């Protein structure tokens, strides 16, 4: 019914569908458990929860725009978190305060972003120069990154940071959680990159038709390497948020975030074959997922069932997005 209404109005863009889904999920959860879901405590808690995987979804978005994918995002996030954590623990220590702690925090963040960029460069070289399929290249590199993190920590969590580290993940700026601020800034930056820069438009067009991009003399290698470097940097930022919120770093944190990031990007209308995607759509998808996730939590649905729901949702959304509903309607009315 809703779908038919949409196609008749000609507003069947993925973003429009998403806005409706987000509102419907929000209303449904609010109706099922109004006291708890609509409480300010829950709203703020949600605002702290989603930025970390939402940032990973941004990384997924830019790679998917080129028809690729980055399955190493969680690996990169954990590797950068582990390296930063080791710096913080070994050089600053839990007791560091004031300028010293702040200095080491900036050093750790700087190293994290550099490591993220290097990891992205590695992915980019595998995909662009060596021509490996992105899905396999990043599946492999993700395991490599995770493996390095395990080797560095022996598999256990690294903890004992200066107090200032917790600020990134837990503080509020004028009531707005810091992770949310970081996500909004990154999302805005990605939106500008994709729509207002030569690089962003080229990446979109490459995704629409790689062969035509070659014939249009676009420097494809440079383009893809930049895409994966950006993805790596975004992943490292997500790693920092996770590290701060957990007040520790571990090689296998956030393993369910990979599926979630893919799901959000696809739900957000990003075409997994490349050539289309809007950051606005991804933001709406993030909200829908968080509403759903919190709601299910309140309804005391188990974590295992949640993964099942996410997986099913991913397939459902891809089916909805790839089916031409107007043709479907016409065929039915023809009989």
């Amino acid at each position, binding site marked *: 019914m809703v779908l038919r209404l949409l196609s008749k109005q000609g507003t069947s863009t993925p973003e429009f569908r998403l806005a409706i889904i987000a509102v419907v999920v929000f209303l449904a959860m609010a109706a099922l458990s109004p006291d708890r879901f609509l409480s300010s405590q829950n709203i703020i808690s949600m605002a702290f929860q989603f930025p970390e995987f939402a940032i990973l979804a941004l990384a997924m978005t830019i790679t998917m725009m080129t028809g690729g994918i980055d399955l190493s995002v969680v690996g990169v996030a954990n590797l950068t978190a582990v390296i930063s954590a080791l710096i913080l623990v070994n050089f600053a220590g839990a007791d560091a305060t004031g300028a010293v702690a702040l200095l080491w925090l900036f050093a750790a963040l700087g190293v994290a972003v550099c490591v993220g960029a290097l990891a992205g460069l590695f992915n980019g070289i595998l995909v662009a120069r060596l021509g490996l399929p992105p899905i396999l290249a990043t599946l492999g590199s993700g395991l490599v990154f995770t493996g390095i993190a395990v080797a560095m920590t022996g598999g256990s969590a690294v903890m004992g940071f200066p107090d200032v580290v917790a600020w990134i993940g837990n503080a509020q700026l004028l009531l707005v959680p810091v992770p949310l601020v970081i996500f909004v800034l990154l999302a805005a930056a990605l939106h*500008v990159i994709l729509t*207002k*820069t*030569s690089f962003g*438009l*080229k990446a*979109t*067009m490459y995704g*629409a*038709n790689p*062969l*035509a*991009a*070659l*014939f*249009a*003399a*676009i*420097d494809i290698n440079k383009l893809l390497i930049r895409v994966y470097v950006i993805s790596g940097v975004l992943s490292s930022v997500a790693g920092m948020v996770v590290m701060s919120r957990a007040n520790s770093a571990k090689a296998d944190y956030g393993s369910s975030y990979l599926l979630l990031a893919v799901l959000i990007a696809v739900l957000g209308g990003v075409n997994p074959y490349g*050539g*289309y995607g809007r950051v606005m759509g991804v933001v709406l998808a993030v909200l829908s997922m968080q509403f759903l996730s919190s709601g299910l939590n309140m309804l005391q649905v188990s974590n295992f069932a949640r993964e099942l729901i996410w997986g099913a949702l991913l397939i459902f959304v891809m089916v909805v997005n790839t089916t031409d509903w107007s043709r479907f309607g016409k065929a039915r009315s*023809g009989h």
Partner: protein
Amino acid sequence: MKLWGRQALAAAPDFVFLGKCTMSKDDDDTFIELKGIVKQYGGVTALDGVDFRVKTGKAICLAGENGSGKSTLIKILVGVEQPTSGQIFVDGKPYSHVNPRQAAASGISVIFQDFSLFSNLTVAENIAFATQLSGKKRLFDRGATRRIAQEALDRIGVDIDLDARVETIPVAHKQLVAICRGLASNARLIIMDEPTTALTGREVQALLGIIRKLKDSGIAVVFVSHKLAEVLEVCEEVFALRNGRNVAEGPARDFNAASLTRHMTGRDVPEAKPPLNIDQAETLLVVNQLGKEGAFEDINFELKAGEVLGISGVLGSGRTSLAKALFGLVAPSKGSITLSGKNIPLGNPIAATQAGIGYVPEDRLTEGLFLTQSIIRNVAVGRFDHHRSGGFLNLTSLVDEARGWIERLRIKAPDYDAEVKSLSGGNQQRVALARWLSQTPRVLVLNGPSVGVDVGSKADIHAIIRELADSGIGIVVISDDLPELLTTCGRILMMKDGRIDSIVMAGEMDEIELAAKLAS
């Protein structure tokens, strides 16, 4: 459309070939007749009372420019679209519309331009696929597959390796496989969409021979094309459409290429004249001893400013490899290319572009255009880096520039933000041209500039080529469309087995002599 083709073929039930069909008394040998077909899409009238008739064992030319309604008519004929009004008679029985299954069951088979073959299956599997699927058997029968395929191939008297994978066989053979697939599912009418665009002169002749055989065995053929002069000789009847109406019909012998064109376009398309004397002009491109193993060898030529140089040769003569090498898409192993005395690095399209060489590829849909992207973006893609200020794109100046080119090339589009795939072939080709022109190239390599473009647009594109040459751009036209080469080019390099076999000056030869030379 593509999907439909497969479904319909797969759905074709057993059908006894010929003999079983009962003809009504008044229509002795008319297989299919369409009367007063009207088709409206929303407020747009695509067909306005069109009549069309196919007789058993006859070949018919359905001529019309892009947008004339010929595709719509075919869609109605095969049941993909339902007419708004009008009647369809199959074997004399009236229908208000047919559905794809009925059309397939009555033996109508369509061969689309891309042939819709399964490129990773063998020749035999492709031919027998539909028949095998429609049978009741659950298991795939390799012996039967080969037998069905061999029978079909024998009927048109060609010999193709049954076990070859379709992706490895030449284009002309793919077309034959598509014809055989129709035969294997007992087609009585084979509709061929743009059958000659991918074929060289000699292959067209071979195709015509096969069409004659099909007709002798009682199969009707409809050619849908805007390059009809080539197939006119095997046709009995011509139907020409313009703007959704019949504008001419009659025996094929009453038509020739010029009169067909006049009917299709409603105007006389003037024969283009080669550009003026360029002897004094600056030499732009010098190709010296260029060679690549297995593709071409020993290529030497010069191109002057304002010159239009043709390169022709049959498929596999190395013309496309050479064209790509000029633009760096193929890396030659020896030789050099210089532009105004400056050496251009080989095998690097970006360096070639920066040096001022542009390349419009042969296959617009897969190589040339970003189909799902807007017209503006498709034009502007080469200019992104030139409209930057402080890291950001200056979208206003970028769009203004692209609009300027869209208007200069008279690209007909209701909305420049529409996807480029919504345009007709001729307009799409102009978008590809506009992209390169906006980059002010000094040398433009056009591979098949008017492939799949209607007659009117073709003349326009030839006029654009001449204008560009007059403005001092050196142009290389790679084509096997001989009239095109003769009307646009001053010199034509004839390639054979990877070498330049001879050089023909414009005016030295007419089309027939050139065709003989090409086929020799």
